[in-house]
């Protein structure tokens, strides 16, 4: 497992027990309710920089809600989210993106009114000239950077295995390709932290494996990944750390092996009372 993060300079003496990096994301006593129903309750955990950190739990455990809270889509009812040392609770998603956070969605959120390439180019938004006047009058500097962005987007699409869709309209692409398109778009913003919400859902075994590879490559390039996924084989295979949720509360956490052995987790998945 530890090979996955081998790009990190490992100064530690013990080669088998990898020491976690400094925390990139801290969630403290986070809670959120919807009309009196608690979706997330008093949840705390830490994600170390450079890790692939998975969130697991049965349906309705609050995983997607947690993503929405961390990325600013929802505002927390209580608690805090600290990202890269700063309290970012309740900040708008675009501000968090500027701080280096990006994500994909369980229900695809593709810009179907654009080409695949343009979808990825939107991901470059933070690194481009987005002022009105240069756009209206097509300033040369804007055109130049835009053209670089186009090249970079094409490169990213190739990296996630979408080279054959570079000229395609998004609405003509198959489901599996769109899943990767979201990853490419998220990567285009050069995030420090990437949150992937069920990237393998709805994919067949071959496609899942390919996604698996993509995630590993991403992590290998130094991006911290938080993963929500139902495919246990995948989760157990690539995670450095796992947090298990049930009914919006933390059930267990630890290495894949520790979590897999936790009786509460087993009970939750088998449907017994926690």
């Amino acid at each position, binding site marked *: 497992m530890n090979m996955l993060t081998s790009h990190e300079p490992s100064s530690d003496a013990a080669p088998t027990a990898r020491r976690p990096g400094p925390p990139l994301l801290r969630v403290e006593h986070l809670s959120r309710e919807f009309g009196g129903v608690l979706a997330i309750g008093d949840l705390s955990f830490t994600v170390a920089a450079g890790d692939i950190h998975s969130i697991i739990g049965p349906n309705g455990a609050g995983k*997607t809600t947690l993503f929405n809270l961390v990325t600013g889509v*929802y505002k927390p009812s209580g608690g805090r989210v600290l990202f890269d040392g700063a309290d970012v609770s309740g900040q708008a998603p675009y501000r968090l993106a500027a701080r280096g956070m990006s994500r994909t969605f369980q*229900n695809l959120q593709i810009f179907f009114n654009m080409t695949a390439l343009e979808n990825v180019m939107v991901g470059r938004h933070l690194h481009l000239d987005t002022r009105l006047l240069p756009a209206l009058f097509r300033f040369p500097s804007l055109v130049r950077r835009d053209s670089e962005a186009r090249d970079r987007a094409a490169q990213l699409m190739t990296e996630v295995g979408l080279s054959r869709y570079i000229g395609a309209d998004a609405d003509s692409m198959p489901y599996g390709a769109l899943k990767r398109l979201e990853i490419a778009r998220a990567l285009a913003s050069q995030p420090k932290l990437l949150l992937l919400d069920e990237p393998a859902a709805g994919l067949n075994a071959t496609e899942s494996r390919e996604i698996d590879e993509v995630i590993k490559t991403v992590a290998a390039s130094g991006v911290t990944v938080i993963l929500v996924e139902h495919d246990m084989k995948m989760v157990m295979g690539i995670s450095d750390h796992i947090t298990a949720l049930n009914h919006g509360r933390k059930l267990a956490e630890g290495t894949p092996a520790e979590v897999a052995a936790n009786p509460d987790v087993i009970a939750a998945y088998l449907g017994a009372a926690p």
Partner: protein
Amino acid sequence: MLAELLQYLLSGLTIGAIYALAGLGFSIIYNASHVINFAQGEFIMIGGMASATLTASGVPLPLAILIGCGGAMLVGVAVAKFAVERARKASTVTLIIITIGASIFLRGVAELVWGKDFKRLDAFSGETPIQLFGASLQPQSLWVMGCAGVLIVAIGLFFNKTLTGKAMLATSHNRLAAQLVGIDVKRVVLASFALSAALGAVGGAVVAPITFSYTEMGIMLGLKGFTAAVLGGLGHGPGAVAGGLIVGVAEALGAGYLSSAYKDAVAFVIILAVLLFMPNGLFGKRGTERV
């Protein structure tokens, strides 16, 4: 002073009752099909024109209203079947344009059938004003408020007590689920148009003795109905009724105490103010976006 206020209130409630009926029509169709039907005002017009012209040619009033109602329902079903249903997947704006196209078309036909002049319909029970604490009320106002009240209660009972009504409600909550339990969603849409058309037509018939009927009578009434429906929260029936009454009364008070020229603006200022603080209207559900 009090007599003056009462006078304005009565005027407002009368016209507000018509707005409420129109707003209810918007809501029913919106619930069934998520379409804002800008031809709602034309249903009102059909009711007003049919009853005015038919009674003028000797048809007894109740029969004339019934015929107007039937005609409007047929037209409503036709709009649903030939325009709205075929464009189910179209965007919101496209659907708005389709119903606007329908309203222009219907006005054109009405002009051809009934002519361009104003029609008069005699008040249902005379024109001797009723004196009420210094305010005077046309008997026809009582008809308007009474009919609107009865219809609103009847619609409420229909949705909550009958199977068809419950099926329509179910469709509005979850179209797919309704389809899965065997509700014919297409028929629900047709029924909603028929029902809205009937509401509009009765409204048009009862208000005609006050406003006269003419082919363009539906434009402003329809617009105010939309305002009422949005004010109450789209798809919320009682909300639309409340919205209609609020708009009507606000207009009358605005005309009386501020300026009659700005009375139409009053309604729109209110709705802007409400939407500023309640983006889903007074009683609308606060939906959270699912991602």
